């Protein structure tokens, strides 16, 4: 296996090179142990498909999504304007990210602050790689006949109407895609959005991730596929709370591709 190549924008700029895309890693992808695995999986795919990419590394900051949704516009503006300064200095045109919260805010909210980029979510990017033939999913692989259910994240689904690209990937894994009762535009939130990830739940009968994972378990799926680091955490916690670790695995789509193709 060839050695992984991960360069920063600064390193590239020093060489006078410009990458095709900037991989926006995000806070979860950078710091959260579970989400890091998705970052690594996606990096492996980028390498395997010879995609010229760079990361911002230490120059990347939080996009400001949780601060803005909590209501703290000051903190959001500070971090967002800082990021836009960095991105514009490097002349970034195209960004891919593994986090739908980063995706939504970079794509829809940064333009009003002076940050205009083509922003795509990694599930769209992966689907495009498959369409272009750059990733060939070997049929009959690890997931042949496995029951997989797909959890729509709110920020990819309802917020941005992306429902099909991730499902197409799952179909090409030769897997048996089963839908939960609440899916696509009716999909149930994992409970993390709107800065809920960073606080305790308000008083109630149940945690939202438990409600969601029960629905996933009801489908008898072996795997719950996700597209968001926060959903990943919430759903995994749900699986643990229901003591179903032996029966149900929660993976990001990028991880499924890496496993299928032994990257």
């Amino acid at each position, binding site marked *: 296996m060839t050695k*992984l190549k991960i360069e920063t924008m600064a390193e590239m700029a020093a060489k006078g090179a410009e990458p095709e895309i900037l991989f926006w890693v995000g806070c979860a992808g950078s710091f959260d142990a579970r989400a890091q695995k998705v970052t*690594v999986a996606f990096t492996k795919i980028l390498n395997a498909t010879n995609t010229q990419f760079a990361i911002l590394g230490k120059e990347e900051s939080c996009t400001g999504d949780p*601060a803005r*949704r909590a*209501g703290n516009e000051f903190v959001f503006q500070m971090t967002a304007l800082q990021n836009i300064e960095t991105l514009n200095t490097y002349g970034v045109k195209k960004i891919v990210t593994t986090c739908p919260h980063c995706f939504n805010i970079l*794509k829809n909210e940064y333009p009003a602050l002076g940050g205009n980029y083509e922003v795509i979510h990694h599930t769209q990017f992966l689907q495009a790689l498959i369409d272009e033939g750059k990733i060939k999913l070997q049929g009959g692989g690890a997931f042949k006949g496995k029951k997989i259910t797909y959890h729509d994240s709110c920020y990819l689904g*309802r917020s941005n109407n992306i429902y099909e690209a991730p499902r197409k990937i799952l179909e090409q894994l030769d897997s048996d895609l089963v839908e939960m009762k609440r899916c696509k535009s009716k999909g149930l939130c994992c409970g993390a*959005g*709107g800065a809920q990830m960073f606080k305790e739940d308000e008083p*109630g009968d149940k945690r939202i991730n438990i409600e969601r994972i029960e629905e996933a378990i009801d489908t008898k799926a072996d795997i719950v596929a996700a597209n968001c680091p926060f959903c990943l955490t919430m759903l995994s916690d749900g699986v643990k709370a229901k003591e179903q670790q032996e029966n149900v695995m929660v993976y990001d789509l990028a991880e499924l591709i890496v496993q299928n193709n032994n990257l």
Partner: protein
Amino acid sequence: MIGQIAFTLLVVITFGIGYKKYSQLRRNILLGRDEDISGDSGARFKNLLLIAFGQKKMFKRLLPAVLHFFIYVAFLLTQVELLEIFIDGFTGSHRFFRPYLGGIYTLTISLIEILSVLALIATVIFLARRNLFKIPRFHMDEMTGWPKIDGNLILYGEIILVTCIFTMNSADEAIHLVEGKGSYGFAISQFIGPLLTNVYTDFLVMLERIGWWGHIMMVFAFILYLPFSKHLHILLAFPNVYFSRLQPAGEMENMPMIMNEVKSMMGLPVEGMDENADANMDEIPQFGASDVFGLSWKNIMDAYSCTECGRCTTNCPANITGKKLSPRKVMMDVRDRAEEIGAKLDANDTRCIKPELKAKTQTLTKDNFDDGKNLFDYITKEEIHACTTCNACVEACPVTINPLDIILQLRRHEILDLAEGPAEWTPMFTSIENSGAVWQVPDDRDKWVTDLLEKEDQA
């Protein structure tokens, strides 16, 4: 002749009171701040056609959608008959359109009759769903008292209306038969009319008049009742859908004032900044919304367009898992608060003039209004803290109401103006501000890269 005078008088009274009530309604909507909603009329008309006229979003639930569709189409078509009632009422004519339209007239009235029967069936089923089947969304905390009565009143009104239509047409049919003029040939009343031919003609004439007057009186009553009712959606759904947002649901509105402030703090160029802006600022600006005055007029129109169906709440993950948040309640609260302010303005309740302005004026306006209350007297912080911003409520609403937009503006007020909010959020804010990450972590942001490459070297 007496009939014509009575009718004209009734029209004048209804429209007189109506004009006042609907002007107040318009004023209440405009209590909100300005928001320029324009552009892309093509997309807006498409929404109007598909979502408002076509009821596209209703059809996510088939049974209520079909039943509602019957009542809705019956309502639309009856407008033709209503027009005729007005002409007949003013001129004293009888079935004014009939000689001009001939077969088309028979067809139109027949369609109205068929749809009225379907609407009647739908109404009875709706009453049963509301009162017998205990469908949960009709029995939540916010659906007690007036909202519960209101929901039923409209349905009873609908039954009376349909009964009047058939009384009118069937008695008319019987009179026509007795007078030897043959049948009108309307789809349903042609079968009821013959059953009444043995009744005294005088009584039939009276019956027909009772039907006719009953019908139009119900219509007038509806017009005056709507501003007090959730049923206002039959009018407001259309403009509300037309003015609904076209940008992606995930996009939050920017706050240019804060952006410019931060830009100048960071030494970045600020576009279109008035150099004297600071000097001109005689009041501390309000951020977000604490009351309907801080919301956009569209948020308030949303509230008045809400028919309290509860689809938002049954799809809300927080509500599903027993939290206090109910998007429907948020909408009802905004409407109630707008109504409260409106009533105080109408009464010129001078006690509500801001204390510092009391000496200057004796007229209460929205600009000097301060009754010591705001939206937080209606909506608790616990409710807005429970929101996951998942957009399920927005997606669920058949008339494109956006409760999330209001929740987020309340959150902005809480954090920016009150400097309150859940204590657990503070470390997140501080961490983003100080280290650019949502968590306070000792590691560098690219440590995963060095870790990964190290691991590869070892392998």
